[in-house]
């Protein structure tokens, strides 16, 4: 009996963990065949290739390029689902409804001029495993999922020229 309970608990934990990924995957797959949407999937292999292009000197090899190369090497994949000329608010709400049950933490929420942008992160052991961006406006929608293994300092490279007070502390190692 004890074994059964243990097995059932493990199954629940496992299915819970799977649900985090599945929610976003389900959302992507729901609109995968919809012609109004454009889909981009950048696989780990393509990330490797992009890193290879930087290393081979295809791009500038200054400090910024080096940082970018390091960031690229930490990205496991990128999925983008976007649509134009449709009500993005509805899709934004649908996407948020799918995700609220899961373990995504809000990083940034911007609401302006009839558009909403939300950045969320999924953390594991203090590392950011996924950065999720959802934006919806009256005439467009974008869902972007950046998978990998990052620190907040890595994400700061993406938000270059950022002036968030306290962001400098990340650079000094105040927070990983």
């Amino acid at each position, binding site marked *: 009996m004890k074994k059964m309970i243990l097995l059932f608990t493990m199954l629940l934990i496992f299915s819970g963990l799977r649900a985090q990924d599945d929610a976003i995957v389900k959302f992507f797959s729901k609109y995968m065949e919809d012609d109004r949407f454009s889909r*981009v999937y*950048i696989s780990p292999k393509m990330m490797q290739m992009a890193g290879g292009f*930087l290393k081979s000197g295809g791009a500038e090899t200054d400090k910024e390029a080096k940082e970018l190369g390091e960031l690229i090497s930490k990205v496991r994949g990128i999925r983008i689902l976007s649509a134009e000329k449709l009500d993005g608010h509805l899709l934004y709400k649908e996407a948020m409804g799918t995700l609220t049950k899961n373990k995504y933490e809000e990083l940034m929420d911007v609401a*302006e001029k009839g558009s909403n942008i939300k950045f969320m992160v999924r953390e594991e052991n203090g590392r950011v495993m996924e950065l999720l961006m959802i934006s919806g406006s009256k005439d467009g929608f974008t869902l972007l999922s*950046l998978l990998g293994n990052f620190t907040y300092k890595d994400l700061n490279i*993406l938000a270059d020229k950022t*002036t968030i*007070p306290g962001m400098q502390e990340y650079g000094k190692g105040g927070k990983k």
Partner: protein
Amino acid sequence: MRNRIEELLKRYWEGETSLGEERELRDLLAKSDGYDAEKSFFLGISDFSAMMEISLENPSKKSKGLVSFWGRIAAGIVVFLIAGISIYTQHRNRAEKEAYEQVLQAFVLIQENMQKGTGNLEVLQDLQYLNTPNELFDIETK
């Protein structure tokens, strides 16, 4: 026949015979009696000629043909390999560039949207200057 042999021999030693006359002389010697020294001489020459044909022409022709055959195959393989590597490298470079551009596009999309939020917070950055007089004059605020 003897007169003809004598005449041809005389012309031969003087180096005036044609190839046809030399052939005629060999035939006449073969048919006639005597002339043992001349017979062995001309027989020796014909044997030697036959040997020369075998030893000089055939092996060189054979080996040359063999080398050029394998050489052509090797050259073909080398050209094929170089062309293959070159096409593969070109294809890989193009694919890497495309992948890099796609990744950059994704990053730009994130950056643009992030800056929509952080841009609004620039005003907050100015708030840090409110504390500047305290820092300048080392005033304890507690």
